[in-house]
Structures are given as structure tokens and as C-alpha cells.
């Protein structure tokens, strides 16, 4: 029997495969299509203090091996989540990670506090790729100090695992990883979507109502892997790898470069059972390779350190 589980603080995940925020709804829509209990965890759609209707259409456009989205964090709001979704979600035998979005530090705190008083949330993932209203809408996630501040404030409010989800749209993501670790986070999720855009040349309009949006899917996997690897060189806390994971092999790449676990995102849209298949695929791989604990794969990249300078000549 291959060991698949891992722990984050007090919380035990039955395996290293979670589903990413925004790509699995609140779990209820997919219950008939897949066996949710087989997943290591579910990360909810980002929850904001108030219900958000989201951006005007079009919100989605396909790109080569990827897609752009500009959903505008449409979500039912934390209150309705607690009342309508959480009780059902809790019935699954999997870890429930509530993902939180907000436009001020106070709001992050408020949402987390509300979830703390409700029962059933096992851990938190903080989406810092949100506009900081006080700074004219600049993304929290693009500022090391703001990202650290949010982490520190939220840390005070909960003993549950606190995961901070980093944006790839920064020069040195490892600086953010370090600050987040120093501020008390239990783990980091790497990465959120990459900024991108697309244009309709006939109408000369952007294909997303908001002009730019977030790129996800297979196209970004190489970028995500490099970001996870960069973070793994500097932090000791676990990293959850995200970005373009479509297959077991993709997932294994993330473990090898240093991710303790992974999240399946866009792939859920194409095949909602991707996560479950990867759980099974990892087990098979370990069987074949005589590995008795998936965890022993983590961070085992064999590289010739002499020539492996990240910012070297390309």
C-alpha cells in the first residue's frame, strides 16, 4: 500500500490532490459526476464579505492550450456560503479549504472571522490577487508588505492551517514566499493565474470585458513549475503547486520540484474527474517505481547545481 496522506498542522489530507478555487464551485454541482470523497481536499470559490455578481460578459476566452478568465470573483458571499453550502460540503470525507478574497485587510479579517465561528471549514486559503481599494486598486499580491500584513493579521485570528495563495505576476515570487512564511502562514499555494489578454481583430475589442484577465491551463504549467521551484529554494513551509496540471505526470513534476501537494484547476472544466484520476495515477506510479510514500517524491529534483542558476543566460 502506497502512503498518500500528509498533514498540515492538525489537518490530515488523505492524499496530495486538491481541487483549485474557482474550478469546482462549492462542490455540490459535481457530486453526481465524481466521487468527491476520493479527493484530498476541496478549495472553495473565493468568498467575499458580500455576494458579488461578477464582471460583465464575456468572461472567458480560449487561448492556445489555455484560457483567460475575468470572472470578477462572482460568488455568493461568505454568509450564504455558511448557511447554504457549508453544511452540505461538510458531509464529504475530504478537507474543506475556504478561499477568501477581499478588498481591504479588515475585510479579509472579517470574512475569516465569520468562517471561524461557523463549523466545518478545515483550513483557509487566502487569495491576495485582489485589488486593494485603499491603494487605488493595486493588487495586494503585488506588494510584499501588504501580503505579509494580511498574513500576519489573519494568523492572529485562527489556529487552523493558513495557506496564502501567491500570484505569479511579480519579479521574485520567492521574496513573497519568504515574507508569508515569516508572517506565520502554514503553507503557500503557487500559482494563481498569469495576467494575459486577447483581442478580436475585426471588432478591435478585447475578448474579455475587463480587457485583461487571468491565464490558466496547460499553457502555464512551465511557468508555474518554475515559480514553485523558486519558492522551494527559500521556504520551509509546504508548497501547494497549481498551474496547468492536466495529468498525473504534470502533478508529479510539481512534487518533484518541491510541492507537498497540488491543486487541479482548469482541468476540472474539461474533465471533473481529473483530480480523482490523478490520485489513482500517483498511486500507480509509486507502485511501478517502488515508492511507498508519495511524500518521498517531494523536492527530489536532481539537478546539476553548477549550471542551474535560475537567472542565467538564456
Amino acid at each position, binding site marked *: 500500500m502506497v502512503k498518500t496522506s500528509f498533514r498540515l498542522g492538525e489537518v490530515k489530507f488523505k492524499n496530495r490532490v486538491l481541487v483549485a478555487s474557482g474550478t469546482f464551485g462549492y462542490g455540490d454541482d459535481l457530486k453526481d459526476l465524481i466521487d468527491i470523497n476520493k479527493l484530498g481536499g476541496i478549495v472553495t470559490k473565493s468568498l467575499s464579505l458580500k455576494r458579488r455578481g*461578477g464582471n460583465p460578459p464575456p468572461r472567458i476566452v480560449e487561448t492556445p492550450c489555455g484560457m483567460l478568465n475575468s470572472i470578477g470573483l462572482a460568488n455568493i458571499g461568505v454568509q450564504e456560503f455558511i448557511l447554504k453550502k457549508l453544511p452540505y460540503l461538510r458531509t464529504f470525507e475530504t478537507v474543506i479549504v475556504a478561499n477568501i478574497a477581499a478588498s481591504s485587510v479588515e475585510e479579509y479579517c472579517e470574512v475569516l472571522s465569520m468562517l471561524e465561528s461557523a463549523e466545518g471549514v478545515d483550513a483557509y486559503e487566502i487569495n491576495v490577487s485582489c485589488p486593494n481599494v485603499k491603494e487605488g486598486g493595486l493588487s495586494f499580491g503585488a506588494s510584499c508588505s501588504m501580503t505579509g500584513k494580511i498574513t500576519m493579521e489573519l494568523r492572529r485570528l485562527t489556529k487552523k492551517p493558513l495557506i496564502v495563495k501567491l500570484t505569479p505576476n511579480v519579479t521574485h515570487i520567492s521574496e513573497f514566499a519568504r515574507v508569508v512564511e515569516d508572517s506565520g502562514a502554514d503553507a503557500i499555494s503557487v500559482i494563481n493565474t498569469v495576467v494575459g489578454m486577447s483581442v478580436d481583430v475585426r471588432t478591435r475589442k478585447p475578448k474579455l470585458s475587463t480587457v485583461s484577465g487571468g491565464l490558466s491551463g496547460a499553457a502555464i504549467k512551465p511557468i508555474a513549475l518554475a515559480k514553485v521551484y523558486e519558492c522551494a529554494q527559500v521556504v520551509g513551509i509546504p508548497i501547494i503547486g497549481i498551474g496547468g496540471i492536466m495529468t498525473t505526470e504534470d502533478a508529479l513534476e510539481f512534487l518533484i520540484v518541491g510541492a507537498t501537494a497540488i491543486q487541479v484547476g482548469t482541468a476540472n472544466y474539461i474533465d471533473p474527474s481529473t483530480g480523482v484520476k490523478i490520485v489513482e495515477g500517483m498511486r500507480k506510479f509509486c507502485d511501478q517505481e517502488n515508492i511507498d510514500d508519495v511524500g518521498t517524491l517531494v523536492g527530489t529534483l536532481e539537478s546539476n547545481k553548477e549550471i542551474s542558476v535560475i537567472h542565467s543566460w538564456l
Partner: protein
Amino acid sequence: MTTVQNIFPVVGNQEVGAEIFILRFHAPAIARSSLPGHFVNIKVDRSYYPLLRRPFSIYDVEGDDVEVVFNIVGRGTEILASKRPGEGLDVLGPLGRPYQFSDVQYSTAVIVAGGLGVAPFPFLTRFLKKEEKQIITFLGAQTEKMLVPKRLANVHLATDDGSAGCQGTVVDLVERYFETTCVEGPKFFGCGPNEMLRALSQRAENLNVPCEVSLECVMACGLGICQGCPVELRGGSVRYSLVCKEGPVYDTSAIVI
């Protein structure tokens, strides 16, 4: 309705017009729970390019076979057009909310289809006949070769270039028909480009006739989980409905097209 995802065998793929195909696959699980207006979401191949599934209305169900009709507009439909009997097809469905065809408030179903918007109507026509509704069908397209006037009832044609039926838009044709003919207890069932649906919705309002339309929009998941497919709801503040889940069929009085 039980939604399933599986690889189903293609049993036919026939070119029925200018780059227009009817693709038939054997999918008992989908056939059994489909209703007119439902759609299926097809992964055209295992490649990541195109990455996403492609939504298609259920064109018809015969026994355990399901059919879709499509025209080649991009890479996805180009690949679909190359499918041969025996190949596997990755289909997720049925999905969405069907047409409300069985209510007793109306007696004549007025079907209005633009181009490939004809897609849901052969299947709907079957059910309307069972319900013993009157049916009048208006079908428009740019030109004759883009019309697929099969398995419909009481069909009136319109083409932009006049190559078949009346010259002009299908909605104009409907309007003229209503000016000269008394239709008993009508209800519109529309499908086609947004522009056409907008015009139809307008006419329906003027004529005070109930009107359901099936909307098209870009979709990532088709399952209500990505929030990628909003249509604006009528009413004071801006609110959206998800086309893949609460649609694709809407009463036009509820939405802003």
C-alpha cells in the same frame, strides 16, 4: 436528468449542407435523460488545442443514439467534422435547462430558427407532436446551402440572398406571417444568433406572445462551476444568470439579450 461523462462510439457523421454535419453517437445514458433544449459538451480530441469542451444542442434522439448538428467555424468543429463511425467521442451531458414545451397555456408552438439555431428543434418537434401542439416553423439562413430543414413541421423558409423561401430575415418573415395570419395561442421557441434573438424577443413583446430562446455564449465548464457564462437578468440592479446551468433556455421576459 442525470448528467454523465463518457466515451461514446460515433455511429455516423453526415455532411448535410455547406460544411454542415450531423454527428450521431451511441449514448444510451444521454439519450434516456435528454429533453429538447438540453445540450451536450464535447471534447473534440485529447489535445489541449482546443483545450475546452464544445457545447452543442441536442439535435435529435433516436433510440439510444444522440445527434448534434454543427457547421465548421473553427478548430473544434473542424476536428469534429473528421470523426468517423467507430471512433470514440468524449461527451458530457445532457446539460442545462430544457424548453418548457408542455405547459397548457399555449396551443401553437412557433419555432423560429436562425442558421444552425435550428439545432434543438427536430427534438423539440417530436415532443410537441406528442403534446399535440400545433407547430409552425420559421427557418432562416444566409443562403439555401446553410439551411437544414429536416424533421421539422410546417416549415417556412427565409434567406438573406433569396436563394430559398422569402428574401429577408427570419424574424421579418415571422412578423409578416403574424400580420396576415391569425395564430391560435402562440408561443415562440427561438434559437439563433443573439441579434436575431433580440429582434424576436422585441416582436414577442410587441405581440404579447410568450417567448423562450436558447442562448449561445462562450463556456468553459458547462456545469455551473466556472461562472464564465453570464447573461444579464432584467430588473433594477445588475444581476447575472449562468447560461449553462439556469439556461441555455430562457423566457425572454427574464433576460437582457
